[in-house]
């Protein structure tokens, strides 16, 4: 016969079982504090995510009950040439914008880390592309890239660089290039400000020591700056890649995936199939097709953070 420890058999003398007592326990209190966040995540992240997986396994037309079809939606996608074109577009878009944002953001952070007159004002202005709502800034870009009214074309033609303006959104290659430029413009400040925060944690003593040892500017960057900001660099890149994979507004507003699917990515195509074609199951399957790539990134990020 099992014997319970005496301490569990009855409340400890002198410490009556009160609500306050329960709340003061670390385990209870910490969960209480965490619960709003956890509930929020469950309601707005976990539930839609799992519902999305559930939908992707159904032939679910709008306004009608779904029929479970297993992996049939994914099988259909794998046999669809447009799906592969969209996969290629998405990876080109994410890779190009990430490299450009990383290089530009790092340069921006290094400049902003120097002392110069009006530095704070410059920092505030650099954040503008990130702060302005995407839908709004996209309208401005629509005019900038509009072949008829483009200020870029106007400048190029009037400066005598080209005889005829470019068709920024009508030509497949230029359209993708234009979207990459706009995404880079919008996303670079995120890199810049985050990396600047990383740069400011570097104590000047290290640079002084390196200078005394005869290190050149390039060497100081290579052997002092880069190793210290590496963790920030990796995290900011990972986050940015995840956000860029899901980019929607910019592409939807500027090209809607055209010309001839040249700029369609997972998110815009998923929207068209789910909403415009009313195929919620297939739309969810397209959206979830990004999952393997994102999962690899998230796992890599988690492993890296643990090791650090």
């Amino acid at each position, binding site marked *: 016969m099992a014997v319970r420890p005496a301490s569990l058999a009855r409340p400890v003398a002198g410490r009556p079982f009160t609500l306050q007592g329960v709340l003061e326990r670390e385990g209870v209190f910490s969960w209480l504090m965490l619960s709003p966040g956890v509930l929020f995540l469950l309601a707005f992240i976990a539930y839609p995510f799992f519902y999305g997986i559930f939908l992707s396994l159904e032939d679910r037309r709008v*306004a009608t009950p779904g029929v479970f079809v297993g992996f049939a939606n994914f099988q259909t996608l794998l046999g669809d040439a447009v799906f592969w074109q969209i996969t290629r577009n998405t990876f080109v878009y994410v890779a190009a914008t990430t490299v450009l944002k990383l290089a530009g953001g790092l340069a921006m952070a290094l400049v902003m880390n120097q002392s110069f007159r009006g530095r704070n004002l410059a920092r505030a202005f650099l954040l503008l592309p990130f702060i302005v709502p995407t839908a709004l800034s996209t309208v401005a870009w629509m005019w900038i890239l509009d072949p008829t009214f483009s200020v870029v074309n106007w400048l190029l033609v009037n400066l005598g660089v080209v005889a005829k303006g470019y068709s920024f959104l009508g030509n497949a290659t230029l359209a993708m290039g234009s979207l990459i430029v706009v995404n880079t413009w919008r996303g670079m400040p995120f890199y810049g400000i985050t990396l600047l925060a990383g740069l400011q944690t570097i104590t000047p003593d290290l640079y002084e020591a390196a200078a005394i040892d005869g290190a050149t500017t390039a060497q100081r960057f290579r052997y002092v700056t880069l190793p210290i900001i590496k963790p920030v660099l990796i995290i900011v890149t990972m986050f940015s890649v995840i956000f860029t994979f899901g980019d929607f507004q910019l592409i939807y507003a500027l090209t*809607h995936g055209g010309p001839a699917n040249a700029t369609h990515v997972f998110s815009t195509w998923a929207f068209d199939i789910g909403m415009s074609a009313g195929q919620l199951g297939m739309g969810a399957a397209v959206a979830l097709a990004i999952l393997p790539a994102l999962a690899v990134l998230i796992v890599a990020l988690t492993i890296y953070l643990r090791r650090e």
Partner: protein
Amino acid sequence: MRTRREFLALSAGAVAATALGPRRADAAPKAMTIVRESSFIKAFDDYFAKTLLPEYEKLTGIKMSYEAVSVGGMLTRLTTIVETKSGPEVAMTAINWPHLFDAGLVDLTDVATEIGKKLGPWHDNVLDAVVVNKRWKALPWGNIGQLEAYRTDWFAEVGVKKFPDTWEDLLAAGRLLKKKGHPFGFELGHGFGDNHGWLYPLLWSYGGREVDKDGKTVLIDSPETAKAVDFCRKFYQETMLEDVLGWTDVNNNKAYLGEQISCTNNASSILVVAKRDFPEIAKVTDHGMNPQGPKGRYHIINAVSHAVVNHADVAASKAFLRWLYDDKQMSRWLASGDAYYAPFLTAYDNHPMWNSEPRYLPYKESLKTSRLHGWPGPAGHALAESVAKYVLVDMFAKACRGDSTKDVIATAASQLKQIYKAK
């Protein structure tokens, strides 16, 4: 003589009827909301929200609200309304949406029949868009037609006094106009209306079809389609700007009003805006019907209609629609719309709304030759998928950018076979 069991059942029924009956009869909703995509014609929206709805509110005591959805966003809004079974009771539909949302919409056959008897008959060709399995799932309001808006002064400069009647004649005029620095601009990108608005009619007028009536036989791979594709490539290369391949629905309006193009396919909104903001351009703008091809002349149907969603109070919603589609209201509302919507009821074929501006008359004329996207195929989910995936638009766009006719048709055929689940 009744048995005890029958008596009990009758008594229970009577008690229930006493309890529920009068309440049910008086249970008009306290409020109703009507959701529509905001119109290009502001006066039309204003007349509905500020005159008609307050009138109905005064008449019935039901608080009437109007929700305007931005252009291009109505399909998404309707999806959320039907999926969540909450929100507005009466919703605007377009293209083939009554087929998509069939299970979520109320049968309006009785109301449609009554209206048809009073003001009709309804134009036959709209039935494809709103009648699903012999049931009316929406009441057609009016067609937003897609015709050619063109510059009469520039056309006259190259000796074209009347809008060309055939695609070949339009191509000839376009060649001359492009040389003069006045190219055409027909949308070939991923917009929602101005692309399908001329590409389906172009295909049909050359005898091409996406799919047969049975919805199983894909017909796109045909010599007729090849002729249409070859024509389109020539039409694009010899008359247009390269940009049209990336255009969405706003671009051609901007380019026309910016005097960059001499002709485009659009609703009458270009002339409406020109009359308001660019009177000099308005003076030299007119409309032409879609040109005819070797196999006839066609236009697209985009029937703006009103549907009642399942969670609505059906009786109250139908009562509202009966009132709205009564000539006393309908006539005034149509007149406020500047002939932007061509009604599908024959009683309005000679309505005074058409007299104020003869340049809108081709939009009325075009109804006779209008067909729903994907015609003659069925108007169901597969059609919506084909439209959402821009199968036809991209087939033409790829040919215009230089792909071979054979390749673009083969790609479209394989996509359509997958969509229509055909062999």
